[in-house]
């Protein structure tokens, strides 16, 4: 049995799974149930000057019969009284002293407000603070949330205000609504933050009701951009995480990974790309707190299979595997191979290859089943056929190097080697 225990900025939790700051963490009753289900920690939904939320609040993106591949929301920070939140945090901490309790904060944009908010949050006995510089809707118009995160100067200033009074670890949560997360991260580090988390939600329109012509979610016939999350955002989050993990000035700062994590595999991927722990929200909102069972169990079994005893054994291992394009080996070449014993003759590989570009699959007409084979000399090794094939391991990509030596584009160009003539 691998040890799933996590220590993030000195904050211990029995597993690396925290619930992100969001509706599931906005009150005692929820958080107690999450802890009972086995969650390692929670980031309590953002506290600040009390707000009022609207109805409706959420919308989703469905695809080909699968519901909620993406999700968005237009909720603001906590709409409950600040004092009530603080009291409940204290109570929860007393009942579950072994779990991580982080409080998310978004104060009004002045030094005094931030100082007061930090002190109030610390008085609960919480283990850490997370600064919400990422909320992409509602708070932005008030000069908060992503409005802070999008401007490194302001972000740095606010972090400095917080660090003037904070005595517990501070995590700065970054917005993805920027061309690069790096400047914001650097600014937060300069301001003194202890850790980072990303991504917050992405500004989005999930769709439009084609009867009413009102985009989703519909609030009395109108809509606003909502914060996008769920499985669809994972690839974007992983990319942003990697840019931080690769940066020399950022890489030693612990990062809490967030963005579409639904399964233990997603969690492993975030950690492989440098996240010290992960935060989950949408998956728990859609399927309930019980998903923690398989998140832990699946990660544990994978770690056992791979021989990782602690989560630190694999954190960051995939970071060096993402390099610059011009460093890739041009002599590496793979070609597709179709296993006729597994092929079900659906033709999906054929038409994908045919219509995409390469015409590298031959078709032999049959009734009712056609036979498909790879034209090796035409195959560029793009993976598309393997991607569309409905049968596991029916199409494999086999290595057929173009040359023994490692040869990258820079060298290729320097030597004046030939380009395609067709």
């Amino acid at each position, binding site marked *: 049995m691998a040890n799933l225990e996590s220590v993030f900025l000195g904050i211990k939790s029995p597993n690396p799974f925290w619930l992100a700051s969001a509706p599931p963490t906005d009150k005692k009753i929820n958080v107690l149930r999450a802890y009972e289900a086995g969650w390692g920690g929670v980031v309590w939904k953002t506290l600040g000057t009390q707000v009022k939320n609207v109805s409706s609040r959420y919308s989703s993106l469905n695809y080909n019969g699968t519901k909620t591949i993406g999700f968005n929301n237009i909720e603001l920070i906590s709409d409950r009284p600040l004092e009530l939140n603080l009291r409940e945090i204290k109570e929860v901490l007393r009942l579950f002293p072994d779990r991580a309790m982080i409080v998310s904060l978004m104060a009004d944009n002045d030094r005094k407000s931030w100082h007061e908010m930090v002190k109030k949050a610390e008085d609960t006995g919480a283990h850490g603070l997370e600064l919400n510089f990422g909320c992409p809707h509602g708070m932005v118009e008030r000069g908060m949330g992503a409005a802070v995160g999008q401007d490194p100067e302001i972000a740095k200033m606010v972090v400095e205000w917080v660090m003037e009074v904070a005595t517990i670890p501070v995590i700065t949560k970054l917005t993805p609504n920027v061309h690069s997360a790096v400047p914001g991260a650097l600014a937060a580090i300069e301001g003194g933050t202890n850790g980072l988390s990303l991504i917050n939600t992405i500004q989005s329109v999930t769709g439009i009701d084609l009867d009413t012509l009102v985009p989703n979610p519909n609030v009395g016939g109108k809509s606003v951009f909502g914060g996008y999350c769920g499985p669809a955002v994972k690839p974007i989050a992983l990319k942003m995480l990697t840019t931080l993990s690769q940066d020399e000035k950022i890489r030693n700062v612990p990062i809490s990974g967030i963005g579409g994590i639904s399964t233990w595999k997603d969690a492993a991927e975030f950690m492989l790309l440098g996240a010290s722990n992960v935060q989950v929200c949408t998956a728990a909102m859609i399927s309930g707190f019980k998903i923690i069972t398989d998140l832990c169990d699946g990660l544990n079994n994978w770690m056992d299979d791979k021989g990782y005893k602690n989560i630190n054994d694999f954190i960051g291992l995939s970071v060096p595997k993402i390099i610059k394009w011009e460093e890739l080996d041009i002599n590496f070449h793979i070609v597709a191979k179709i296993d006729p014993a597994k092929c079900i003759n*659906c033709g999906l590989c054929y*038409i994908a290859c045919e219509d995409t570009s390469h015409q590298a699959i031959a078709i032999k007409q049959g009734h*009712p089943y056609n036979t498909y084979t790879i034209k090796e000399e035409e195959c560029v090794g793009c993976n598309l056929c393997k991607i569309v094939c409905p049968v596991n391991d029916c199409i494999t990509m086999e290595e057929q190097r173009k040359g023994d030596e490692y040869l990258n584009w820079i060298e290729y160009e320097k030597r004046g080697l030939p380009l395609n003539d067709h």
Partner: protein
Amino acid sequence: MSIQSNRLTEKDFIANFSDIHPPYEQDEGALIEASRCINCYDAPCTKSCPTSIDVPLFIKQITTGNVKGSAKTILTSNIMGAGCSKVCPVEKLCEGACVFNLMEEEPINIAKLQRYSTEKAISNNWKLFDRKKNTGKKVAVVGAGPAGLSCAHALSREGIDVTIFEKEEKSGGLMTYGVAAYKVTPEFCKDEVDYILSIGGIDVQYKKELGKNISLEELDKNYDAVFLAIGVGIARSLNIPGEELDGVIDAISFIYDLRTNDYSKISVGDHVAVIGMGMTAIDAATQSKRLGAKEVTMIYRRTENEKPCTQVELDLAKLDGCTFIWLASPKEIIGENGKVKKLVCNKIMLGEPDASGRRAPVDTGETFTIDVDMVIKAAGQIPFEKIVNTSSLQNKAGKIMIDKNNATNLKGVFAGGDAVNGGKEVVDAVQAGKMGAKGILEYLGL
């Protein structure tokens, strides 16, 4: 033992003859099933459909919420797509070819999805087809069965006025008169026919029978072209002693009676023997049981391996409690006071493969006898040879011969469906009607 009607209660009849393949009750069911489809390229299901319905497209259209488009995709290829979704032996056509079978997975429920889209089209009376400008041409179609309706619809779309001459009181042919009621209800048949005819330009004249109150010469003279879709209808006789006894009936008449009367009025015996193992034999056997027969025994001269019906059909008869005697052939029906009493059968063994490729039945010389009070003959149907022979139509034992353009040897006279092929599936007849229309359009220079 006796033959009686009204063996069951009204409630039992309703239950026994209700739809055996209920539709999706909610859209979600169809959406989930449609989403399983991987939308094959050059799809085996489409290639296995005699009318070449673009199955991946119509299923994809269900997933995108374009049910109207889905129905049009189906009906463009097969105007009786709704009925075919209920009566097609899909296990040997589209669903049998589904690539999921090759993964040992359940094939996509194509028939049920097809029913979903087409029934929505019928119940909402979606106007999916327009008629082109009137060409001034007139075509006569003989027979309002699947082939005739399909041909008429295709011609009407092209701006031709069509008159169908039908010997019965209703359209639909075997769909209306020759299929088990639990597969297609009389109400459904009427709705489907009404929907097909709603395109306009098709006038159906009932109780008009070729060779009786209409003649081919007359049609030839009054119309620009003629399409013969007269089907097959005469039950093959057993040619054994006792066939004239009271209690011997052919399956076609039996099912016809069932489809045109209240179930309570149809008589069945206590112990019914059904001769044959085709689809019609199964329909007769299962419906005898559902009318209240105590025992139904199906008798077939080959083994289960050579059965002409599909496994799904055979299972249906098994689930209905029918029993089976394989390798047996009727030799004599013994009567008492003019009524069926016993059936004597030859025991059969299989010999060398015959012309059909199946091993031929060979008489062993041994016999056995079973007590029965009713015998239903379902040993196949033969064409209307007499009608065909009164004209100079080229034919082969009554099956009308056509060329690659679906034309007969008589100028302007085309033919298709069971009258040509000797009796196949509804879907084959629909395709034949389409092809007949194509031949006629070319002939008329349209």
